[in-house]
Structure formats: C-alpha cells, structure tokens
C-alpha cells in the first residue's frame, strides 16, 4: 500500500466559552490515499464537519480553536504552516464543496465568472482562456449547454445544477483532495444519485481523493472505499468499507446500520438508537456513547476505550465490541 496522501493525527478542536473548554473534536485520526473516497460518518454534532473545517482552517467562530494534532499532506506537515503559506494549500490543493450550494455561491456574480475567477486566481492566464476553461469545467460536471449557462446567475440554476457548478468551482484549481460536506443532503434522491455518480467519475478521471462527509450509510455503501465513524467528536470505528459494513465492531456502527431502511427486513418499524447525541457542553465521561449503548459494561462510563485493531486497517474503540454472532442474531431478529 502506498503512503497516504493525507494523514491526520490526533486532530483536536476546542470550543472555549469563558474559562471552560470542551473538545468538540477529540483526537481524530485518519488517512486518505490518492484516489480514495473516505466516508466520514456521524450524526449531527458528531464533529465530522468541524474536523474538516479545522483541516481547512475555516473554523466558523473565534471561540473555536485548533488545540492540537498533526496533518501531513503528501508527507509534509501542514498544521504548523503560517497562514500566508497555508493559502497555497487551501483551495489549491484541498478543495471543498458544501451542503447548500444555493448559499455557498456568490448570488450576484455569474456562474462562469465565479469559476473563471478561481481559474485565474490559481493558474493565472488571460480572461478569455479562463472563461474557456470555466465552460469546459461546466461541461465536465455535466451542465447542458455550458457556454450559455455560464452566463447565468446562481438563482437561475436548479439545486442539482448549483451543486454541479460548485463542484466545477472547486475543481477550477485542480486540487488533489476534495472535501465534500454533505453535498447531496439538500437534493432529492434522483439528483443525489447523479451527483454521487459524478463525484465517482471525477475521482476516476482525475485521480482525486475525496473526503465525503455524510450521515447516510447508504450513500457511503454506494460511494466510499473506506469509512470513518465519528461519535461525540471521537473516532469510534474506522476501516475499509466492506470490512466495516460486513463486520461492524462498534455498537454505534452496528446501531447506525440497523437504522437503515432495508436492514430491518422490509417490514415493521425502522429501528432507532434510543436517546440523543450528547451536547458539546455536556459530554459523558469514558466512552461517549455509553449512555445510549446496549453493550455498555462496567468500565465504559469511566475509561475511554482505545482504538483496537480487529482486522488489517480495521480499528474500533470499544470495551465490549460486537461479536459476529451477536450481530447475526440482531439481523435475523
């Protein structure tokens, strides 16, 4: 296996309110190889978005601060870089697309112009060439009649088209990594499938690596090569997609899978995990999932479980992991 393109180690983000500081992202580690699609999975507030914002140094509030960790891009440490040097990475080598393309595009600038601006900003060149490249990018992301549509404003596009335009915008700088923050959540199901197919095509044609943030395990199963499950700001399970989905070790992963429509056997009510994810100012001690966990044993409330290997590259942080037998009974029950 080749060396990873991106290696994140112990990434920690603190939220400071007065004296108190809570870790909303706590020691998150993962690796991303060239051309790999990594699914970052978790409920709202699990820290998946914050972890990626921290990677990009785009934390949304001054109360949130990076409190530690190391990020290596192609073997080079980028966490300690000064802001000026980091700007040659943000946007240029790591691009980002967002959940709501309607609000993430400049409403008063033509789509083609926005893309051409990014092309010129990152690669220089004349306005004409940049405009041509913008049209070419719009064609690559499947916008019909791109030369005409480049003159449109964002509000003249449909949701799916806007998301395609945003992908084109992020690709304008020819990045190595694309962070996709729930890019399909705001779209209807058929458009969602088109966007997922598009992302896969782009990965195949450009050798792009993608970090795909989602709460939808179905999407992960379709798209991703590996999975990293977050809960309460910590990694609870990480590994290759097949391995994790076939043999989930963490009760939270198993619970999420049981919540998917279809796994319940086609009839009856959808399963749910009882309770709510913890609030960031009231994180439980020990394993953060223990108050909701049907597998909880005595040390769970006190001791934070380490990430233990279960198979090559497959790690889970649990004192009482799911055994295959018990999972099978779950599925047949």
């Amino acid at each position, binding site marked *: 296996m080749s060396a990873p393109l991106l290696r994140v180690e112990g990434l920690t983000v603190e939220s400071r309110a007065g004296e108190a500081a809570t870790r909303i992202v706590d020691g998150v580690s993962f690796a991303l190889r060239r051309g790999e699609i990594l699914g970052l999975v978790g409920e709202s507030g699990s820290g998946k978005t914050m972890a990626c914002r921290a990677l990009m140094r*785009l934390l949304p509030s001054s109360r949130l601060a990076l409190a530690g960790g190391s990020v290596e891009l192609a073997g080079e440490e980028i966490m300690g870089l000064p802001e000026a040097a980091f700007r040659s990475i943000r946007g240029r080598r790591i*691009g980002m697309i967002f959940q709501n393309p309607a609000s993430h595009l400049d409403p*008063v600038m033509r789509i083609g112009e926005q893309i051409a601006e990014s092309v010129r900003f990152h690669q220089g060149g004349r306005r004409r060439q940049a405009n041509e490249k913008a049209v070419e990018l719009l064609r690559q992301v499947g916008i019909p009649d791109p030369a005409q549509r480049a003159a449109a404003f964002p509000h003249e596009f449909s949701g799916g088209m806007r998301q395609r335009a945003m992908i084109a915008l992020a690709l304008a700088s020819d990045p190595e990594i694309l962070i996709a923050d729930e890019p399909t959540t705001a779209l209807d199901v058929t458009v969602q499938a088109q966007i997922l197919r598009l992302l896969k095509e782009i990965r195949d044609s450009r050798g792009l690596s993608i970090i795909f943030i989602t709460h939808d395990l179905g999407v992960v199963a379709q798209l991703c090569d590996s999975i990293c499950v977050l809960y309460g700001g910590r990694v609870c399970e990480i590994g290759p997609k097949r391995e994790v989905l076939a043999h989930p070790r963490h009760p939270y992963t198993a619970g999420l899978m049981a919540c998917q429509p279809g796994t319940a056997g086609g009839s009856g009510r959808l399963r749910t995990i009882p309770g709510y994810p913890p609030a960031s100012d009231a994180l439980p001690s020990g394993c953060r999932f223990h108050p909701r966990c049907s597998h909880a044993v005595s040390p769970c409330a006190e001791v934070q479980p380490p990430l233990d290997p279960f198979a090559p590259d497959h790690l889970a942080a649990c004192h009482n992991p799911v055994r295959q037998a018990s999972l099978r009974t779950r599925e047949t029950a």
Partner: protein
Amino acid sequence: MPHALLIGAVLLAAFVFVAVAAPLVAPYDPIFQDATARLAAPSAAHPFGTDNYGRDILSRVVWGTRVDLQIAVLGVIFPFLIGTAAGTLSGYFGGLTDSLFMRVVDIILAFPFLVLMLAIIAILGPGLASFYIAMALVGWVSYARLIRAQILVLRQSDFAMAARSLGFGHARIMFRHLLPNAMVGSIVFSMSDAVLVLLNGAAISYLGLGVQPPTAEWGIMVAEGQAFVTSAWWIATFPGLAIVLLAFGFSLVADGLGEKLGVRQ
C-alpha cells in the same frame, strides 16, 4: 424594466443633456443684465420671466443645471467612496479597526450636520471646492454605517466561507464578493442622498459660502427671488421647480434601482 427606473433615468438624462448643451439651449447669456426688462413676467421673449437685474430666468436655470448637477454628483461620490471603503474594512475586520472607525463616526455624528459643514467651509474659505471637501469629511459616515451593517452579516455568510475555502485573500473576498452584495442599500441611498446634497448645496450658497454670485445656481436664485415672491413669483418658482424635478428624477432612479437590484438577492 421597472417604470420608475425608466422615467427617472429619462429625467436625469434630460438634465444631463441640458447641462451639456447649455450654450445651445439657453436663449440668453445667464449673467447679461437687460435694464429695460427688469422683473418682466413670463412672455414669449422670456418664457420664465426675468429677475430684478433683468437677467433671463430660463437661461439662468439652464446654466444652473451644470452647477447643480455637479454638486449632486460630486457631493455624493466622495462620501460614497470614503464611506464604502471605511464601512467595508470596519465590518470585515471588526475588532480594533471597527472600534476606531465607529468612534470617528460617533464624533462626527455628535455635531449637528450643518454646523460641522459650516465650520469646515469657514476654515477652508468659501467656494464649491470647500463644499465638496466638507461634504466628503462629514457625509461618509452614513455610507460607512450602511455598508458596515451589511458586511457584518455577509462576512458570516456561506459564500464568504466558500470563497475562503477557494483560497481567496481578504481583499478579494471583501471587494469582489461581499461588497457587490452589500452595495444595493447604499446605491439606493446615494440617490436620495443626492437630493439632500443638492438642497445642502443650495443652503450653503444661500449663506454665501458656496457658489458665488453672479454664477447661476438654483439655490442662490431661490434665495434671491425670495424677496419678490409676492410681486414676481417666477424668480424663485422656476429654479425651485428645477430642484424638485431633479430630486424627483434621483428618487425615481433610487426606487427603480432598489427594485431591480433587489431581485437577484
């Protein structure tokens, strides 16, 4: 296209035409005094009548368009530019920059507008140049506040963050992305501000600190005609109507622009 914008634009265009073509449009020399036709009522020879020096009112209104249009435009542009820059920096960076700019704004707002204007013009000496400088020094605060309030909101917006995620620097985000989104309000305001500046210019000229006689300027003409308003109503009325009409044109354009630019948001 909204009708208000069309009508307003036509009105303004007409004034610009009159200003540019003043020598062709005006039937007489605006400062020529005809002793035989003092205080003449409107007639075929003098459609707007003459004043107490026998000067043709129509010609003076036509030539006054040049001066008053210049007052309205220059009296708005400088405050607009300064205020927009200050408001953008203030709203975007916040913190110390913001405190600094906003305290200066507070100090300027603490003085009555006209008193501050007069004080500055008194120091610089009477004349239009002093008026423009005073206008720029005092008038920018409204623009700064308007723009700052918009930028404060836009800076937190999703597309500002998306622009940062593309690696763009502060200057590019501020001026190419946030500002065009923030300007609608202040462009509309600048049009109604032009009306106020126009009246201000007239007031300053009336006090003898702006345009100097015998130059034709609507404000001075209204002031001069005031004494004769019961006996020769036309002296003050026609320049007054010109002010109203120009102001009307600016207001219509302001409304029309507001409607048109608002659509995209």
